[in-house]
């Protein structure tokens, strides 16, 4: 039975995780996401669904506990914020290298360094293009509301297991800390160990005589074999781009100018589109929901229609690179962003668009 509640994005993630039947959560406190673990500890799911919740000694321990749980075929997740996610980069590369599904939440704050605890979107490149070493990508989902914080837990796990690849929910301090109403789904059962063994034949369950031993590993010392592995992984990414790109369009049908923004920035841009339309400027918004796989094809289509695109993000310019790569010079792509925890207003976006495309 679903339920309507007012809650923080961070709380919604925790509630949704329990209801979806997540098996384990490992985490370490950091602002602005500590409510995820706090909510779980308050709700004590180990007494109801059997979900394990453990406070690890660090983010590095968290991500490696994830590696243990995920290798067993369990649905495991962690959450952190920017500096903590940086510490997980080796672990994420290992998870990708061992083809393990799992979900990591980054409630982004402003960097670099210890920086600020206010919202930012400056971890886009890390999330999307390569924080850790080696040729791999995470599946990256960008929620823009508390409802999506809840909903994307399920979506992230579904994609992670479909592709045997870690998924990252790229949120930020605004979405994590704000309360909105959210409809929580009904409780699902966790998967039994038996069902798991059938559905995920790669998982370590203890080796029965009926199968070869399962080995969760990312080592391959033979370069040719390792290159084959890499090709296989790249093929997965191709498939993702075919089958699992998600985005939302807002007033794009007749748009002459396109805002491209995700997450919290996209919420604000929606208002900017309204304001622009009130001024008689035909603006639209494309909001990538999957940042990887990126909706490049869609943007390329829109490039044939619009006169210019403005990538709006709470950073110095990271998303804008993917937008430019997608349209490959077909239309001018400009960037607008605030940094350091400052949130742009809808009006600033309007101004930026006008300045870039309509004046001089």
């Amino acid at each position: 039975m679903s339920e309507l509640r007012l809650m923080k994005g961070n709380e919604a993630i925790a509630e949704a995780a329990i209801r979806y039947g997540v098996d384990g959560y490992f985490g370490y406190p950091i602002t602005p996401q500590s409510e995820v673990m706090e909510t779980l500890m308050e709700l004590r799911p180990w007494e109801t669904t059997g979900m394990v919740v453990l406070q690890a000694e660090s983010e590095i321990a968290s991500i490696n506990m994830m590696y243990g749980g995920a290798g067993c075929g369990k649905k495991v997740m962690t959450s952190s914020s920017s500096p903590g996610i940086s510490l997980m980069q080796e672990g994420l590369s290992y998870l990708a290298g061992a083809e393990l599904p799992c979900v990591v939440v980054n409630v982004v704050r402003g960097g670099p360094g210890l920086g600020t605890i206010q919202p930012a979107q400056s971890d886009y490149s890390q999330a999307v293009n390569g924080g850790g070493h080696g040729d791999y990508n995470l599946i990256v989902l960008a929620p823009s509301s508390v409802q999506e914080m809840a909903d994307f837990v399920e979506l992230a796990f579904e994609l992670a297991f479909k592709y045997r690849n870690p998924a990252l929910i790229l949120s930020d301090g605004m979405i994590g800390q704000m309360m909105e109403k959210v409809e929580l789904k009904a409780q699902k059962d966790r998967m039994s160990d038996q069902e798991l063994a059938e559905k995920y034949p790669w998982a370590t369950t203890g080796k029965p005589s009926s199968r070869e031993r399962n080995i969760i590993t990312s080592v391959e010392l033979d370069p040719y074999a390792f290159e084959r592995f890499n090709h296989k992984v790249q093929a997965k990414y191709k498939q993702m781009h075919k089958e699992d790109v998600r985005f939302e369009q807002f007033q794009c049908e007749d748009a002459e100018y396109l805002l491209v923004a995700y997450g919290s920035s996209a919420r604000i841009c929606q208002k900017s589109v309204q304001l622009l339309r009130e001024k008689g400027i035909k603006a639209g918004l494309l909001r990538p929901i999957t940042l990887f796989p990126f909706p490049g094809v869609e943007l390329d289509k829109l490039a044939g229609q619009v006169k210019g695109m403005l990538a709006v993000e709470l950073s110095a310019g990271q998303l804008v690179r993917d937008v430019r790569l997608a349209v490959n010079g077909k239309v001018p792509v400009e960037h607008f962003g605030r940094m350091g925890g400052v949130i742009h207003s809808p009006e600033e976006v309007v101004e930026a668009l006008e300045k870039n495309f309509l004046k001089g």
Partner: protein
Amino acid sequence: MNEEIIIAGFGGQGVLSMGKILAYSGVMQGMEVSWMPSYGPEMRGGTANVTVILSDNRISSPILRKYDTAIILNQQSMDKFEQTVKPGGLLVYDGNGITRHPERDDINIYRVDAAEEASKMQSAKTFNMIVLGGYLKINPVVTMENVMNGLKKSLPERHHHLLPLNEAAIKRGTEIVKEIATV
């Protein structure tokens, strides 16, 4: 309907929960709502604030720089937020500890001496509900019925016996709020 409110005061004055009750009341009334607190260690300093938006439409940014209404509960917050009220907007404040009263002449200013009243009622915890009552009197964005529903939803079950006390405090707030200036 679109009401953008900042509530600001000391930590411990119940700023965040007041905002939450207001937001939940909005939910009960079928509105879109957002509640966005100041967060992190700057709260150590002893101040807290929360932005609440109640709207008939999807809400874009929950973080704002200008507000329709500011509910201000100490001097620091007065200094910080008086200028952020939109012209024609509303400022509600508690006079306790205020050394510099609001000076704007382009907004509506009301005062609700909730601290004084709470100590009279011998129930410091009702302070924020008195303020809420004062605000709702001036700007009844949600019905009292929905406020009570919102209150119920945001209080844990084990505190539901306090509902009547809170209701009384809200009522009291509607009674003691006084106009200082209007435009």
